[in-house]
């Protein structure tokens, strides 16, 4: 990252880092430069040096993120915090890097001068390219559309059949005006009563209609085949990608938003590719054929018919811009609508408990009304402009009728020819009208395509590298100087180093938000550590294939999620190949079998998408059975008994004791008594590993753990008193 952005005016000698800033340490606006040499930090304000700090006077540097601004601060040897300067958020990553490098310099004596170039950014919008060759935000719409068209390739055979059938049926249509002309010029105008000729024309028309019907049948059959397959492929790709995305990426989006992308956006593209992709080719073909016929018949009249087309194309471009914005707004409100619905229905128990059904109905109505308003607005703009465009495109017809009529009267053209010509003109306007609809369909589809490709193109933060391999885990875990922050500049865990031996049971304790769950998230590699390394059996987890790693880790969480299905399905989720006997054994070990037997349909009892029919303890025991069936080498218990009453907790504890036997187990619990059988306790404090040892050892140390225990005893006493 480039860390010299603006040099001090008079002195750039020995400058290692130099960044601009906009606020003094007391928050006053200014025009300043923060310059670092190998010894000093110099603060320049309005071009003059204002303050010089010796780097050696500090023990640590960090940035503190505010709401609209942030500040770089240094901690002096006596613990005093000194604010150095304030800056706007666009400079935050650079100051964060400077603080990290300065702290590294203090710790190791190594001053890193080569900070590399900036991450490549899009020259147009300035957004990071993140490994792509082209900015996903500034990619031309044509390339997005071409990508869509490429999706047809696997079904090109069906697509070509549909296309050929459509072209053939369109070609048949061109013959009808010719037959009309024959009928008028040979039989109607001269009042010729030669019946055989008339019957022959009528039979030709019927025959052509039948052939057209056959072509239409094959066209529809193959069109649907392409359409439905492409829709399925898009939905599957987005779903698969959403499963591969890291927790970081997933948590940036709501479930409602992802559902909207997988279902609604995919359906829109499905429609667009088949209907418009094929129509486009057919319509362009029709315009060329009919246009050719018109020019061959009467070039002067043909020119009059096509005169308005350039104006229509210009109007079409403008319309596209307007419609695109409107459809984006519709998309925005539609997504919000989906999210709200998901939110309310998911929290229906809370809604009912608080008796807020009416309030939620009002909230929903309001959202639904806004969506309807946006839709009405988009459609109104469309239908207000569409008749005008249609008038413009068909304006040439009036000239054709006027001058064509004069030619018929002047006998330079027959009536049949004029009828044939005007019919062709009408047939030309059909495909041309497609150009008017382009803005609407193109805008709507490109919004959805953008949303779909945004997910498909997203690079997962957690990826297997080339050396990743599958291993059989024994259960030794080692943290070496591990630091991690959900935001790199704001570490949750700092320099954690510890070893967990195979078969050991470790309890992690500490205040809320201290990083306990983060530690286990790192072991499961749901996130990658910012610094340091975690290894299992001596292999860095970054070199273990994610699938191999996670398949050997079992997890029991506080909030048990049961999938919509039977008790059997939910236990077998851990190992779909397990025999029924294995499942019963797992349920027995988990103390779950007895209550399952009492359920009306035994193991086939449907437990609903949230297991509503079961109590918290019962759900938890199914989760334990699931973990037992997986036979994990490493077991993680995250507040597994937190929300249970004492009796149920006892039953669960028994089940857990069986489960943890011989496995490396890491347990998190707020209720410290539940960790009494842990071999060792890790006490986290302010993101650091403050203490390790057995309960007895830690109590005698009278440190952080001792305080935690005492505070908990106090609370228990207070509860008993109440």
């Amino acid at each position, binding site marked *: 990252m480039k860390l010299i952005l603006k040099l001090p005016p008079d002195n750039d000698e020995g400058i290692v880092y130099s960044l601009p800033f906009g*606020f003094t*340490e*007391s*928050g*006053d606006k200014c025009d300043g430069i923060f310059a670092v040499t190998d010894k000093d930090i110099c603060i320049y304000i309005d071009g003059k040096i204002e303050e010089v700090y010796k780097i050696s006077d500090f023990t640590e540097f960090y940035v*503190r993120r*505010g*709401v*609209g*601004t942030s*500040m770089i*601060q240094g901690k002096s040897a006596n613990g*005093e*915090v*000194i*604010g150095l300067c*304030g800056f*706007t*958020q*666009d400079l*935050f990553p650079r100051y964060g890097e400077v603080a990290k490098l300065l702290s590294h310099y203090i710790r190791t004596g190594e001053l890193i001068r080569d900070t590399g170039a900036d991450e490549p950014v899009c020259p147009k*919008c*300035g*957004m990071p390219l993140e490994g792509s060759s082209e900015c*996903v*935000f*500034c*990619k031309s*719409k044509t390339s*997005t559309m071409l990508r869509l068209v490429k999706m047809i390739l696997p079904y090109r055979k069906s697509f070509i059949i549909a296309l050929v059938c459509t072209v053939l049926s369109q070609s048949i249509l061109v013959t009808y005006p010719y037959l009309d002309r024959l009928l008028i010029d040979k039989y109607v105008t001269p009042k010729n009563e030669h019946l055989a000729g008339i019957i022959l024309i009528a039979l030709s028309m019927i025959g052509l209609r039948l052939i057209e019907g056959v072509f239409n049948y094959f066209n529809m059959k193959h069109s649907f085949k392409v359409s439905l397959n492409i829709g399925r492929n898009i939905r599957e790709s987005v779903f698969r990608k959403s499963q591969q995305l890291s927790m970081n990426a997933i948590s940036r989006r709501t479930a409602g938003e992802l559902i909207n992308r997988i279902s609604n956006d995919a359906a829109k593209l499905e429609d667009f590719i088949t209907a418009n992709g094929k129509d486009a080719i057919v319509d362009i073909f029709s315009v060329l054929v009919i246009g050719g016929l018109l020019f061959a018949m009467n070039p002067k009249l043909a020119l009059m018919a096509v005169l308005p087309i350039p104006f229509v194309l210009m109007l079409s471009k403008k319309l596209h811009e307007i419609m*695109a*914005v*409107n459809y*984006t*707004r519709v*998309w*925005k409100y539609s*997504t*919000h609508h989906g999210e709200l619905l998901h939110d309310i229905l998911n929290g229906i128990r809370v809604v009912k408990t608080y008796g807020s059904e009416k309030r939620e109905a009002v909230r929903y109505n309001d959202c639904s009304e806004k969506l309807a308003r946006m839709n009405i607005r988009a459609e109104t703009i469309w239908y207000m402009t569409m008749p005008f465009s249609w008038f413009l495109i068909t304006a040439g017809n009036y000239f054709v009728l006027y001058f064509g009529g004069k030619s018929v009267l002047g006998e330079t053209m027959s009536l049949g020819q004029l009828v044939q010509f005007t019919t062709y003109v009408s047939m030309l306007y059909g495909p041309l009208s497609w150009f008017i609809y382009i803005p609407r369909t193109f805008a709507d589809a*490109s*919004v959805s395509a*953008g*949303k779909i*490709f*945004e997910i498909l193109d997203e690079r997962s933060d957690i990826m297997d590298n080339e050396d990743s391999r599958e291993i059989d885990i024994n259960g030794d875990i080692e943290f070496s100087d591990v630091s991690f922050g959900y935001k790199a500049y704001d570490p949750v865990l700092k320099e954690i180093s510890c070893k967990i031996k195979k078969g050991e049971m470790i309890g992690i304790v500490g*205040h809320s938000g201290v990083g306990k769950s983060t530690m286990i998230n790192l072991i499961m590699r749901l996130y990658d550590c910012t610094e340091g390394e975690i290894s299992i059996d001596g292999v860095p987890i970054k070199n273990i294939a994610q699938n191999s790693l996670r398949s050997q880790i079992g997890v029991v969480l506080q909030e048990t999620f049961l999938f919509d299905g039977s008790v059997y399905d939910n236990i077998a989720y851990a190992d779909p190949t397990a025999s029924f006997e294995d499942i019963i054994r797992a349920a027995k070990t988990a103390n779950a079998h007895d209550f399952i037997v009492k359920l009306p349909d035994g193991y086939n009892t449907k437990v609903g998408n949230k297991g509503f029919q079961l109590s918290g303890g019962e759900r938890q025991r199914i989760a334990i059975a699931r973990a037992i069936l997986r036979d994990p080498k490493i077991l993680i218990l995250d507040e597994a008994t937190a929300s249970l009453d004492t009796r149920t907790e006892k039953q669960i504890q028994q089940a857990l004791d069986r489960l943890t036997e011989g496995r490396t187990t890491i347990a998190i619990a707020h209720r410290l008594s539940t960790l009494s059988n842990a071999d060792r306790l890790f006490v986290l404090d*302010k993101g650091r590993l403050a203490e390790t040892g057995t309960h007895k050892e830690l109590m005698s140390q009278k440190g952080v753990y001792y305080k935690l225990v005492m*505070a908990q005893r*106090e*609370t228990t006493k*207070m509860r008993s008193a109440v």
Partner: protein
Amino acid sequence: MTNNEELYKVDELNLLDCKKIHFTHEKSGFLTLEYEGKTYHKTDPTRLIPFFSKTTYISLSYESEEQEFREIGVIKDMADLDEEQYNLLDSFLKYKYFMPEILKVYNIRDNMQGSIFVKSLTTSGEKTICVKDWYQNFRMLSDNYLYVNDADGNKYFCEDIHKLDKKSLAVLEMFT
């Protein structure tokens, strides 16, 4: 301080008496507060309802020696402070919540991939604000209040878009 006292304090909304408040700047960039004979270092004032009021309901807090959050109390209305104290706190809050105000919107370009580029005049000069995921980060918090969070994390606002000139309003209309 016993746990009992702490629990009691956590439960209590402590509205501070503005007449007894005395702030001074400290080197760390925070404020030092003297209140009822006690001195609180590294006091961090926070607007509790930043979008609706900038000078009422200001929470004052600090980090304990264990680096735990401790709220000293809440200033109900900064107008009750004396002028010097008001200015000191106000300037700190303006710095902490630095958020240029949008005065004019010249045009908005949408790249049809979720980002918009808002060319505008703000209290910090002319800017092209790049907003990623604009349907999340370019939104109306009420019928009038526009809140913008750009790709870098800088924030912008317009308290009442209906007070902008007609052209700006027309440009905004399509995106709000």
